[in-house]
């Protein structure tokens, strides 16, 4: 906006400007009255906690309160980063995210491509309705279903036994956690994820398909050379957004599914913040850990965006 220039030009008439603002306020008094409540909401539940993060730099103590606890600088950050557990947390967080992106991100892309090739629109709509459904189940329900199905005499072990295999304690073996987590993400998200891709496909010019056919392209070739490029910008944008969340894996689901014996692979930064902060009441330490996570996430989005801008024309900013 060109406000600074304007201001310097109108400097001697500052009173006029102020009167203009007052007039705008008065004329729209109803709008400001409406906005008061939302503004209060954002201050109380977003901006106050944002500044509340400062407790990471003090030895916060509930009795002394925010304003009277002692400042300790970076003590808790240093403590966290020299903790041997630090690397395990970072590793688990990154790996779970990377696996999710690697496996559950492409699933809706492929599924949308296939859905798009269905000629029977009634069948197509039915498939869509069914596959959207898991998106609306709560995390607790999905975790509950996993616990039931993966238990020692659950569905999966019955199948394994039927084929003559050995029963597996899925939820107590650290080696299985990532597979279970990512698999359930795919189950829940694939159908819902196709919505946006299918929307992007409606914008593709049908002439492109015609031209491709003229050049002798078969269905697969059309899919590869027309449909996929048509989805590309949306894919890149979504990939970037996903990379932005790389540090915040589905923490609620992990919280529900992990057990002491799977901490090895399942404990992530956010679950650690929850345990240290709310269960052990190490409020300052946990806040420092969570700030560390935000900063790292921010750096990763910026990096990802930079790469996307270099590699393709699409980027978030």
């Amino acid at each position, binding site marked *: 906006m060109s406000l600074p220039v304007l201001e310097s030009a109108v400097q001697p008439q500052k009173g006029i400007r102020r009167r203009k603002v007052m007039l705008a306020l008065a004329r*729209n008094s109803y709008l400001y009255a409406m906005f008061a409540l*939302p503004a209060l909401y954002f201050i109380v539940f*977003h*901006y106050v*906690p944002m500044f*509340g993060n400062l407790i990471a730099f003090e030895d916060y103590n509930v009795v002394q309160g925010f304003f009277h606890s002692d400042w300790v600088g970076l003590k808790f950050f240093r403590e966290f980063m020299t903790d041997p557990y630090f690397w395990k947390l970072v590793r688990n967080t990154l790996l779970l995210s990377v696996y999710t992106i690697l496996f559950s991100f492409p699933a809706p892309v492929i599924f949308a491509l296939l*859905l798009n090739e269905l000629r029977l629109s009634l069948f197509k709509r039915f498939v869509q309705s069914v596959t959207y459904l898991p998106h609306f*189940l709560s995390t*607790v329900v999905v975790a509950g279903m996993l616990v039931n199905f993966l238990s020692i005499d659950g*569905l999966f072990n019955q199948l394994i036994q039927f084929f003559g295999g050995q029963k597996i304690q899925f939820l107590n073996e650290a080696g299985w956690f990532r597979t279970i987590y990512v698999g359930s993400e795919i189950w829940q998200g694939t159908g819902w994820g196709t919505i946006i891709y299918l929307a992007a496909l409606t914008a593709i010019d049908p002439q492109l398909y015609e031209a491709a056919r003229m050049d002798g392209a078969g269905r697969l070739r059309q899919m590869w050379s027309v449909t996929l490029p048509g989805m590309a910008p949306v894919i890149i944008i979504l990939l970037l957004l996903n990379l932005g969340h790389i540090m915040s894996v589905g923490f609620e689901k992990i919280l529900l599914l992990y057990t002491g014996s799977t901490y090895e692979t399942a404990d992530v930064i956010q679950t650690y913040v929850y345990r240290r902060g709310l269960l052990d009441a190490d409020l300052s330490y946990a806040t420092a850990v969570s700030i560390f996570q935000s900063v790292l996430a921010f750096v990763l989005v910026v990096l990802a965006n930079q790469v996307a801008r270099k590699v393709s024309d699409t980027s978030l900013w």
Partner: protein
Amino acid sequence: MPGKKFDAFTLFNVLIMLAAIVVTLYPLYYMAIVSISDGNEVMRGSIGWFPKGVNFKAYQIIFADPSIVRAYANTFLYTAVGTTINLLLTALCAYPLSRKTFYGRNLFTLLIVFTMFFDGGLIPRYLVVNSIGMMNTIWAIVLPPAINVWYMVMMRTFFQSIPGELHESAYMDGAHDGKVFLRVVLPLSLPIMATMVLFYAVWHWNSFFPALIYLNDKAWYPLQIILRNIVVEGDMAQQSNALGGDLGTLVIANNIKYGVVIVAVLPILLVYPFLQKYFVKGAMVGSLKG
């Protein structure tokens, strides 16, 4: 399409789609049939496609359990009150921001969108909720998520698409912004409002973590917490009392575990077919604007 031949690719594709349908629906179906099957058959693992020894004992126990019934009622309450607050505050936020005459709207929008990227974090928000004295009250559940910025932006975009002439003619008739909002804008905004109600309501129905951290009093627990205790943690203490003995408990434990999941999912399954088109439309608006 006329003259289309049924090639190998189509066959392959249809098979994949059928597989997707089975993989999606079978778990839910399986939960349902196990919950009404004979406990001994369940333990033997002989339930596959059809229920065996159909009985509704698990559901009798579930609905006779006061803590489950109360949790159900609590969830309804949180969903109703929460969604009302969501709708009210989101609209109050979105409408002013959609008006060009609203001085400072760019700054306000920026400050609000900023909160999407820089979140207060778990602990500081907990401390705020705690220090306002909202612990163990419904307010801790319904107020902190009152406005979803993403949905607010969706709603604002919708309001902006309403032609300005309508506003002007209302002003001519002497209406102020509050009146214009109630009489002109809201009646035109039913589609977006319906979408919002659905999204927010599903969110409240499914929400579990806020209840976990803000509520200690069992009387306030929502369904998802009970569900977690029974299904995920395997805590059947209360339900075994209802059974009156330990012998039967083990046999019927699986029925109950699967049954509570069905009970929790049922309302969503029932409304789902009717609301589906709104969900899809809403998701499209929401994601394409991003």
